């Protein structure tokens, strides 16, 4: 299990995967908005998404988990 965490504080702009999806390393999982910029959050490994813990519009602090991959 690998937790993909937010690298900076911001809000969730777009969630591009859901539980059960197969993802590859480097794939965009979530797009955050921070400092008026779009910040893509990429998967650090290939695997299956086991859960997505944030919704569009949620505030996320640095280091919070966005997606879990197994």
């Amino acid at each position: 299990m690998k937790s993909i965490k937010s690298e900076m504080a911001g809000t969730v702009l777009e969630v591009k995967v859901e539980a059960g999806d197969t993802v590859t390393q480097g794939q965009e999982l979530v797009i955050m908005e921070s400092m008026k910029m779009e910040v893509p959050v990429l998967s650090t490994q290939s695997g299956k998404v086991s859960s997505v813990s944030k919704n569009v519009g949620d505030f996320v602090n640095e280091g919070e988990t966005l997606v879990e991959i197994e």
Partner: protein
Amino acid sequence: METFSEVKSRVLKGGSQKNHDKNTQSKKLFARKRVDLLFDKDTFIEDGMFANCKDAELPADGVITGLGKIAGRVVAVMANDSTVKAGSWGARTVEKIIRIQETAERLMCPLFYLVDSAGARLTDQVEMFPGRRHAGRIFRNEVHLSGRVPQICLLFGPSAAGGAYIPAFCDVVFMNDGNASMYLGSPRMAEMVIGEKVTLEEMGGAKMHCSVSGCGDFLCASEEEAIEKAKKYLSYLPSNWTSSTVASKSINPEKNPSEIKTILPESPTRAYEMRTVIKCIVDKDSFLEVKELYAKELLTGFARLNGQSIGIVANQPLVKGGVLFVESANKAARFIQICNAYSIPLLFLADVPGFMIGSKIEKEGMIRAGAKMIHAVSSARVPKISLIIRKAFGAGLYAMCGPSYDTDAVLALPSASIAVMGPEPAINAVYFNKIQELNPEDKKKFMQEKIEEYNKDIDLYRLAGELIIDHIVDFEETRTELIKRFDAYSLAARKLSSPAPILPM
């Protein structure tokens, strides 16, 4: 009685076969082999080879020191021999290191530290630890040499406790992944003293130091790779603070500068890879990124422009929106200081939304780190060009060498914009009360109107018209414009009147 040649060959062999085998198993080269790989063939001259030679256990007292040539330039070296008492420091070891530092100062030549050492020999501590010409002097000398001659560390094994400060005071540290480590207290000591259970790799390994702590600059897969990279690094630098860099043959860039236009996304908030922009500007394959794995929202590195050595500081929109954080501000400040110390012109590629805000980053001391970066920018006396690629907002403009910083030229691409902040937050700040009173529909209309007004106010042609930026450069002209300008500004190469020491990270 041993003959001279027997003594010499015994010393040249280093430590016991068992220790050599142990090193081979962990893919470590013999210290003398490392020195061979570093220098041009048959150029090495050694001092202190016979240090402690009467003691069969201590050939060269565990460190090799001397002079050699790299690409024809004289360079000094010290190399720990980990087959001798794990490369630990005795009295002669310390004296030899101090002497090679003094030699580097006398000859004003670069100094390489090939580190692989367990630290002080506790049995010899009174002879090597506390006194005037003991271990503390090594660090004092590193600080004294800082900014006078390049000091380059290749970390091939441990640098433990006090020894960890050898890399910390160097300009740059190449770490061999798997073998290199830096730590003040070993995992065993951490468990004993503070109760923490942690592995050496987690606490002081090369990956950690190159990506988290910032103590390492280059993560290398092998010793050979580290040596090659370190030589390449040196090729961008002069031998000392008063001499000039050596130009190489100009090579066309990997990509056509006109491609910059297509790299930039239509949406001003969308991310893109700044390295691709760099490929459109500098000589092909010449960008040597420094601290590639650390604070990735900002790129630093040396490159060649028309064969000339330059330093690049560039925002990286692909990571964290290119926003400046504590780590990236420190990384930039340090790199700028290195370029300044060795008279290497600086190119800033700006696409920066500003410094990070929020309670977390304020607690980390964002303002302190930002001040450090702006301090380095202000103090740098080398030719400086700031090229605004897309946006330069707020103090980000200052940090990326905006017009107020004795910048030789602030150039803008047609895609550029400069402002205290982006349109939306600016309008929210000015009309906050009014916006609160409006219903959603009116609010949207109001925002749109004001954004248009705001964008007119910060219009690029207006900024050029008011002489805030010096020139607007077409995408395809980017490289030739920079070449011509750096060439012109080199006339005013503001040589430092005294050395500029480089502060540790």
